């Protein structure tokens, strides 16, 4: 009886271990499958023409040109939004961790709201920004897109910066205070410097999210074959370029969607690797 129970127990452990290994292998396999499918389908279509030219005449029926409009558009949109979000997030994150450091209840509430905001789907931000845009009489434009994405990435950037600043040793604050520094001085010198790697990672994280998001700018950024020259013009983005071109009945256009997917994936990989490198060098 006892040995049977022991056998069952050992059997359960062995099965569990196999299931765990299998699940883990599955995840690695799927990552490989995603990268392989997207690259093998898209890489052959990535040509210099595609990444260096905006669409020419007849582009959407298989004519000449490329997706430069979407590449530039995505970068401009995400850079603008990351900059705006940075201007809001950095001071607020510093305030939270230095001036409000002793108000635990307030901080709990603030972090709770930020975490809930973090989870709001980007399509909801898009819909909200759209109503705001109509209400204010804006047109779909680079500026409207930037504002929408800013809303979307503020909780992400702010919360990541907050996490980075929470890692700064409390002794630094005490030592600086003892030397007579004001809280604002401590924030902009001591904390800023010692949390720099984490802060950079936060910006890169939000920037990557800004480049990759499609649902929020679907309503607000418009779409155009031209490279925008001012904030008031509509702008194409890479995710939307992929999405729209995939819906085309023309095979050549669909090929370009795959090529655009490769470009987008590489952009995201570069951002992710750079932020990893930057945070490691500093720390």
């Amino acid at each position: 009886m006892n040995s049977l129970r022991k056998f069952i127990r050992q059997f359960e452990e062995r099965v569990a271990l196999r299931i765990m290994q299998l699940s883990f292998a599955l995840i690695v396999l799927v990552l490989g499958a995603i990268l392989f499918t997207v690259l093998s389908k898209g890489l052959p279509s990535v040509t210099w023409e595609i990444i260096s030219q905006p669409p020419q005449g007849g582009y959407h029926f298989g004519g000449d040109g490329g997706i430069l409009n979407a590449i530039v558009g995505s970068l401009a949109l995400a850079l603008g939004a990351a900059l705006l979000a940075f201007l809001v997030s950095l001071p607020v994150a510093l305030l939270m961790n230095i001036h409000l450091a002793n108000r635990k209840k307030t901080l709990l509430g603030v972090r709770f709201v930020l975490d809930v905001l973090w989870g709001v789907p980007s399509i909801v931000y898009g819909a909200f920004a759209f109503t705001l845009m109509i209400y204010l009489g804006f047109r779909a434009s680079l500026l409207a897109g930037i504002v929408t994405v800013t809303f979307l990435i503020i909780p992400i950037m702010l919360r990541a910066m907050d996490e980075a600043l929470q890692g700064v040793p409390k002794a630094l604050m005490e030592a600086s205070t003892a030397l007579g520094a004001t809280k604002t001085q401590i924030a902009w010198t001591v904390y800023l410097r010692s949390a720099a790697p984490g802060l950079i990672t936060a910006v890169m994280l939000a920037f990557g999210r800004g480049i990759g998001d499609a649902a929020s700018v679907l309503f607000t950024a418009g779409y155009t074959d031209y490279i925008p020259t001012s904030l008031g013009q509509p702008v194409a983005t890479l995710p939307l370029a992929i999405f729209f071109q995939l819906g085309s009945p023309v095979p050549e256009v669909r090929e370009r969607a795959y090529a655009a997917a490769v470009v987008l994936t590489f952009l995201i990989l570069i951002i992710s690797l750079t932020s990893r490198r930057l945070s490691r060098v500093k720390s």
Partner: protein
Amino acid sequence: MNALQLKDWLFSRSTGFLLGLVMLVPLAIGLGLTIQSLPIIKNVGLGELVWGTNWSPMRGEFGFRAFIVGSLWVTVLSFLISAPISLFSALYITQYGSPRLLRMVHPVIDILAGLPSVVYGVWGILMVVPAVSFVGACLGIETSGYSVLAGALVLSVMTIPFVLHMLMEAFRNTPPELKEVALSLGASYWSAVKLVVRQALPAVFSAYTLGLSKAFGETIAVLMVAGNLVQIPTNPFMAGYPLPALIANNYGEMMSIPSYSSAMMFGALLLLIIVMGFNATARYIILKTSAK
């Protein structure tokens, strides 16, 4: 008051104001969407909107049931697929894996989590949809492959890195003494691991809840593979039309038909309420358990 103190005062006041504005964002979104959806709520009635089956914007009929059921299909299916996989992988990585594995896994999870949803959508079209169509054909079910099952598969792949990350955190945050004591009392490694899971149960629950809400709100990838037919799917191989996909698909037309845009904003409001409910619950549990 000297210049430094003045600077301090200015910074804390102006930034405090900024913080207040950020805190008002959820309220503003909720209020804005509510105001926009009031006309349709008045015209059609809340019950009919949420659970009505008739959908024809041209005739002013707006029943969201097909879209809500479509969303439930992809979300619940994706949960059933991803929940065990992420749980077992997280256990394997944190309880059985070497430190080297742990170091290697982190960048992989980060990359998976950072991939834009449109890339997942492309992968879905290239690989998942044909696979679903193939399996359907083998089972004798007629399907194009664009189905709630395809949507659920893509969604589970998207939520796994997100949930896996949180589960790993949860298991690593359990006190190491727990396992040590169990082992020293003669428990097998696996039963010690089960104790770890029991200890981390609230965190596991909230990780799952956050994963569910992410899946529920995911738009582009699902839109690309779910088929988008206004119908109530009765099996996973049928096409469905999740709520976010509906909103995303109709941004162009909704301005031309009166009350259509109001209906779309109602859809967004519905999405916001459901997702925020999920999120708030999960975050609340995390707060409560981490405060102890």
